[in-house]
């Protein structure tokens, strides 16, 4: 039986051939970032866990040793929790009484809800249609594929000739979007998720790109007590770990988050941001 990860990678290799472990690692990292872009409830955690297992092994790490550490941590943690619990334990009989007490308010609430439902129908409110309407308002996702650089095609078949056109159609023209990516970066797809109260826009890059991630939440806020630095006209919070350079900042009510493999690429993409038309 072919695993989920293998299926995904076979699909991936139809457009991007893999010929060594480094490219395989990049591909798996890309699959993981694709999952990261989804709402938590929609992620495939079996796939994520299988991908992580493979990735750690490909990186030459001793996964069995990592698992031994996790087991030691688990035993120590639960031991600590149980010790703490024993020290503050109530008498069991009293706890049972507390649980029983909640049944009566619960029954009262359920009765109220039932009465309200009956009353709603009596007043002519169509609850079924209202629920359906609510479901329609659930977050909508638009995948934009930019494999053909001259055309951007959305999941519903809408076509845009440029990022500007796309920005206008998606009503994000007031935001800063990357028009040109630094050398060594290429855009693979854009994921727009409309949560109603805000939109989440993610530019997913070709694996191995110097820009590894770029996302905007609009509207979005950014607050930090940590030191900010100036890059162009923007004051950003910068961080750096293990060869990854990241920046977070707010602009016109949108929260921007960018990661790159070098400071130069990070600076270049921030300086190159322009508004959509």
């Amino acid at each position, binding site marked *: 039986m*072919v*695993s989920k*990860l*293998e299926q995904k*990678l*076979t699909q*991936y*290799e139809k457009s991007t*051939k*893999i*010929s*060594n*472990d*480094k*490219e*395989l*690692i990049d*591909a798996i990292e890309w699959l993981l970032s694709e999952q990261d872009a989804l709402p*938590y*409830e929609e*992620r495939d*955690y079996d796939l*994520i*866990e299988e991908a*992580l*297992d*493979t*990735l*750690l*092994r*490909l*990186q*030459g*790490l*001793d*996964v069995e040793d*990592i*698992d031994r*550490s*996790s*087991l030691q*941590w*688990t035993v120590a*943690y*639960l031991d600590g*929790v149980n010790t703490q*619990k024993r020290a503050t334990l109530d008498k069991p009989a009293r706890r049972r009484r507390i649980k029983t007490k909640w049944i009566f308010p619960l029954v009262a609430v359920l009765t109220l809800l039932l009465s309200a439902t009956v009353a709603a129908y009596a007043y002519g409110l169509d609850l079924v249609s209202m629920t359906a309407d609510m479901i329609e308002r659930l977050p909508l996702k638009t995948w934009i594929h930019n494999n053909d650089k001259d055309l951007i095609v959305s999941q519903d078949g809408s076509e845009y000739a440029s990022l500007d056109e796309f920005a206008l159609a998606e009503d994000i023209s007031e935001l800063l979007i990357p028009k040109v990516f630094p050398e060594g970066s290429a855009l693979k797809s854009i994921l727009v998720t409309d949560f109603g109260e805000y939109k989440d826009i993610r530019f997913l890059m070709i694996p191995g790109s110097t820009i590894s991630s770029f996302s905007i939440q609009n509207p979005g806020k950014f607050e*930090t007590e*940590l030191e900010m630095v100036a890059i162009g006209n923007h004051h950003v919070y910068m*961080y*750096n*770990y*293990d060869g990854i350079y990241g920046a977070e900042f707010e602009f016109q009510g949108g929260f921007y988050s960018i990661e790159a493999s070098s400071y130069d690429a990070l600076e270049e993409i921030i300086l190159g941001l322009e508004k959509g038309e």
Partner: protein
Amino acid sequence: MDDMQEYEVVVKAYSKPLYRYCYHKLCGDRCLTEETLNDVFAVVYQKWDSLNKTNIRAYLYRVADNCIKHNRSMHQKYYIHNRSLEEISSTDSGDTLYCTDEYFLRDIDEDKAIERIKVALPPEDFKLFSFRYIHKKTLMQIVTETGLPYSSVRLRLQRIEEAAKKEMAIIFT
């Protein structure tokens, strides 16, 4: 099963995948990983009574991400992985396995070991095993001969090596 037992079941079920997840995101820093896991499960413990447990896995990963972000910003220095990515061969002939030939064939009857592994593996898996360990073919040669994508060959060999390791462990005990 009372709440505490249920909580323990959740900790035991998810600590391993979350440990790996945090370990990966925190670049191999075990101390920070364990600190993050403490934070994750402390949050879960505090909110246990009010938690919607129908999709606890999604909730755990969401909390883990928040704790990772917080801990990353608090700790500016990170350890690198044990093995640099540059050490992983990018050529088609010098590819490195994490499980070497020597592991399989040291101090034992080679034919006996191979027979045992042959019984343990499905035929198509044993074929890959023999390409790699008996005929000493490189990964790209196996890709060419089988017509499988590189990723499939790599993933299957990883799985085959794990199964073969177990058989070897039995031989040694």
